[in-house]
Structure formats: C-alpha cells, structure tokens
C-alpha cells in the first residue's frame, strides 16, 4: 500500500484524516464548552461586525458621533493598558507557580488541623492508572515512611481510598472510585449504613447500595464513612448524594454519590498512620 507513489499519497492522506478524526473526537468529548457555541461564534462575529458598521453609519447620519471622535484618545489608552497587561501577565506566571506550591502545603496543613487525632504522612500522587477499568493511584511514600497496607488515604476534601500495596518508597492506593472498592458509609441525617462502590464509567460518582428501607435520603445529603469494616476510620467525608434512583422494590433502590475528592485533579494526599 505504501510502495507506489500514488498509494503512498493515499496512505499519507489516510493517516492525516485519521489523525484529524482522532483529535476532533478527543476535543469534542473533552470540551466543557458547548460545541454549538463553537459553531455559532464565527457567525455571530461576522454578523456583529456588519451590524457595528451599520451602527457607525447610523450614528454619523444622526450626528451622534461623539463616541467615534474620542477614538484616538481611547486608542492611546488601549496601548497603555496593553503594556500594563503584559507586565501583569509576566508577574502572574511567577505567582501561579508559587500559588500551586502554597496550595499543596496548605492542604497538608489543613488535613492535619482537620483531623488532629491522627498521625499522618503527607504524599504526592506520582502516577495514575493507565487502565480504563481500574483506578489505582501511586503515591510517593512507602514503608520507609511508615506506610503499611490497609492504611487510609485522604485529602482535605475527603476520602481517597486505602493502601493496597506498600513498597519501600511508594505505595499503591485503591481509590473509592475503583470498581473493586466498597466503603461502608452512613448518611448525615441517619445512623443507618449503606455501601458505596465505584462504577466503571465515572471518576466523579460512586454508587450507594444496600440502603435501609426506612432511611429518608435527599439530594445533597452528605455521606460519611461508618467505620464498619475495619479499614476506614469513622466520620471521613465520602461525598454528597447527587441522584436518587427509586426502584419498584424499595430494597433495590440506590443513589449516586458525587465524591468529595476530585479524582481527575488529585495531586496531594495524606496517609493516616494511626490515632495519636
């Protein structure tokens, strides 16, 4: 296919088209903005430019051209502001780096303050799972830092998961959004427990099942760890009830819980070693 010059051209064209398709797919499925906006914007710009021209003419005819006569002074102002803006952008870049560092340190201090009864080890997330079906993260602390298997990992927002395998200088953490993860929880307004499990197609939601029949659940209710099961300590925030799915049989009803931790952006965590 790639040997003849004609075939070669066809092959290259095929590759380019495939690459474009791939990039478009990635962009379309990841953009937060509405795709329609992207399509509509150029048309709006063209229409608004023409409309601007008409407005200018209209103002001239009416003698209402005060705005336009002051255009020169505005242009000068614009140039000054542009220079000022460039200076601020450069300063901002330096601040962003410092801010990121500061945020991480604050988070770690915040966790220590939030849970003063625990002895904690701060850590950074150094790797996220490459697989689409498991959601294990790797952190940069291990046995040499006192981390052991089954220790709980949290951020200042809430529960992350637990250590499934501690090596010398790193540890694997099974997150609560992993499908193999099960966390015993209770709802803020009730003392009855339920079990949350990770689901395949989301990094932000987990499914809450085994909900007691007489428990009243409302959207926005906070979910905490119950302490049952022996791995997770009690009262760590897991997330908030996002959707309630009522089934015909009440025992089968389930909820979707939005996790307190943003697993797409998670960068620093702490490992709970033990109670002080």
């Amino acid at each position, binding site marked *: *296919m*790639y*040997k003849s010059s004609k075939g070669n051209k066809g*092959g290259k064209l*095929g*590759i380019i088209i*495939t*690459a474009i*398709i*791939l990039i478009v*797919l*990635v962009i379309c*499925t*990841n953009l937060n903005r509405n795709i329609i906006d992207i399509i509509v914007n150029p048309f709006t710009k063209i229409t608004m430019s023409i409309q601007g021209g008409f407005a200018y003419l209209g103002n001239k005819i009416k003698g209402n051209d005060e705005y336009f006569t002051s255009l020169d002074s505005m242009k000068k102002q614009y140039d000054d502001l542009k220079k000022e803006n460039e200076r601020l952008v450069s300063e901002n870049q330096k601040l962003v780096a410092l801010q990121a560092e500061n945020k991480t340190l604050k988070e770690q201090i915040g966790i220590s303050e939030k849970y003063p009864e625990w002895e904690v080890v701060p850590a950074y997330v150094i*790797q*996220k*799972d*490459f*697989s*689409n*079906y*498991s959601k*294990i993260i*790797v952190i940069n602390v291990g046995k040499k830092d006192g981390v052991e298997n089954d220790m709980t990992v949290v951020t200042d927002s809430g529960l992350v998961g637990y250590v*499934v*395998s501690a090596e010398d200088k790193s540890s*694997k953490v*099974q997150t609560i959004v*992993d*499908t*193999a993860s*099960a966390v015993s929880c209770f709802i803020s307004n009730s003392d009855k427990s339920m079990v949350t*499990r*990770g*689901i*395949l*197609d989301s*990094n932000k939601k987990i*499914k809450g099942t085994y909900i007691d029949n007489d428990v009243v659940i409302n959207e926005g209710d906070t979910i905490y760890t119950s302490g049952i099961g022996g791995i997770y300590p009690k009262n760590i925030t897991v997330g908030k009830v996002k959707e309630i799915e009522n089934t015909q049989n009440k025992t089968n009803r389930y909820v979707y819980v939005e996790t307190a931790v943003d697993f797409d952006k998670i960068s620093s965590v702490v490992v709970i070693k033990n109670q002080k």
Partner: protein
Amino acid sequence: MKKVSSIIIMILVYFFIYFLQINFFSWFNINGVKPNLFIVLVLLVGIFIDGKAGAIFGFISGLYTDFLFSNTIGISAILFAVVGYSSTILENRFSSDSKITILIMQSIVTAIYEFVLVGYRALFLHAYTDILPFIYILAIEILFNALVIIILYPLIQRFGFYLESVFNKKEMLTRYF
C-alpha cells in the same frame, strides 16, 4: 548483537508507551477512555517475530505493569503472554493483504484481554461491573487503538521489517503491507 539492540529497542518502546499512557493519554482521551497500547505492542512483537517471543515479551512486560499498578501480581503477565502467543493463531486465520488484518487482530485481542481482566476483577476482587458501560468503554478503547495503529502504521511497518530481518523470520509477512 543486532538481536540485543532490537530487544533494547523493544524495551525502550515499552517505556515510551508507558509514559505516553500515564501522562499524554491522561488528558488526550475520548470521553475519558484511553487506548491500551501495551496490547498493541505485545501483539506486534508476536506477529513480527513469533508467538513464543510475543508470549515471553508479553509476560515480562505484563509482570512489570503488574508491579507498577495491579493489586494482583501476575494477571497482566498471563494475559499479555496470551496476547503475544495468540498472534500466531490469529496470523494463520487472517491473511488479507492489508493493515485491516492488524486492526482486526487488535480488536479481537483487546476485547478478549479486557473481557478476561474485567471478568477476573468481578469474580475474584468482587468488582462492581455493569455490562453496558463496559461495552461502551471497550468499543472506544478498540476504536482508539485502531486509530493509533492507522496513524503509526508506517512506523509499525518499519519496526516490523526490522524485527523480521533481525530474528530471521522464515516467512516475510509482506502481506501486511
């Protein structure tokens, strides 16, 4: 000497894919779904050298992947070894004269690999698995792998020729090109 250097190249390609999977595809993904280029690499080694080499390479690279991520050491090793070896079986069944062959083989092994892996997780790790999301993710993963293969095909072709010449494969697989 050439064999040693080609093994080193394979290892380097593995690490290149590893960093690509961890860093690049963590944001360059289709609706959150990443490709699995390890499967593609192991399959290609099996096709261009032979099933045994594919199985050995698959086992070692799978074991290494398990050390890094899995909570069950050995599962990826066994599955990658099967992927590497399966190339021999699939090679005998498919002989169409185009890259479609590689794409079909990739689709089959990716589906089998992920199906077994998810099945294992459901049975032994009690992972909660919904069928529809699984099929959806698998379909995108296969599509993503296929698109990457199409884009990198000239490179794969050269790499394959090189491996074939180094390991003196008796039958030159010109039919793939």
